[in-house]
């Protein structure tokens, strides 16, 4: 038997998360957007992605900075899978130094 408070917490989390996922779409799906609004929306994906990984770029550990620098160079030149493999390998290597 699941504890009622645990169930309440989990259902509350699920409702909160789903509302964040649905509301932006529901607000905009029937609108025609201005050119500026379209440009702003085109910038959103990059802004979110770089914000999520921003802590990597301000690490106080020089080994982590080396790892993210190598990852950045690989990502600029190589396809997805080689980039991931190089990045993970270099990160593991620097953490073992």
């Amino acid at each position, binding site marked *: 038997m*699941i504890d009622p408070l645990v169930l309440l917490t989990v259902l*509350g989390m699920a409702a909160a998360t789903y509302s964040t996922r649905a509301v932006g779409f529901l607000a905009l799906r029937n609108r025609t957007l201005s050119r500026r609004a379209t440009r702003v929306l085109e910038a959103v994906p990059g802004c979110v992605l770089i914000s999520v990984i921003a802590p990597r770029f301000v690490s106080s550990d020089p080994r982590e900075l080396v790892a993210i620098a190598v990852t950045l160079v690989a990502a600029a030149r190589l396809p997805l899978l080689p*980039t991931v493999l190089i990045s993970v390998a270099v990160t593991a290597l620097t953490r073992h130094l």
Partner: protein
Amino acid sequence: MSAVEAAASPAPSEWRRAARDTLPMLLGFVPIALVLGAQAAQKGLAAGELVLMTGLNFAGGSEFVAVDLWASPPPVLLIVAMTLLVNSRHVLMGAALAPFLAHLPLRRALPALYLMCDEAWALGIADARRRRAAGLGFSLSYYLSAAAMMWSTWVAFTGLGALFGPAVGDLRPWGFDMAFAAIFLVLLRGMWTGVRAAQPWLVSLVAAGSTYLMVPGGWYVLVGAVSGVAAAWALGGRS
């Protein structure tokens, strides 16, 4: 296969295309899911309870926060409020995806949004832009296949982490957590259209990085995203 069945299940080639793009990502999911499971077990969450959470909520960042705040009895309101806060970036993400999903009936768009984690959204929107450039429409099959693979991997490995976590030990020395940074940087390269269009990204990076250093918790994602979007709005008036 009848037309109804064909509409209900993804076309095999779209599924395969999604699998090829998603597999490197799953490499990053597995260790993080195991770590979350192990932490949850330590806090007294049963594997079944955690699987219910990760399956219904499906947003890793907020689940780490919830497990971090977990106690017996759980602080319900605090955890739900933090979940809302950590996931507020989804509002922007859903808005960015809206033009691609707008043609779908709500009974298909709303379930698709349920699976909109950062990685599924990132793959979906990158694919949508490539297809738009090639004159093609949004591929719901591609997006749903990728998202479903992520969902099942996440739920399965958070559950395994809760069951076997204490035996797995620390995975951080093996570097798997860097996979997400690598994936996101490759996706950013795909979105690159020139220095000018990338100026808001720099604003986001600086704002998120400095917030991360100064403010504890998950605020940095929201501050970074909103700062970059504000910069895009300010720059959007020119040219």
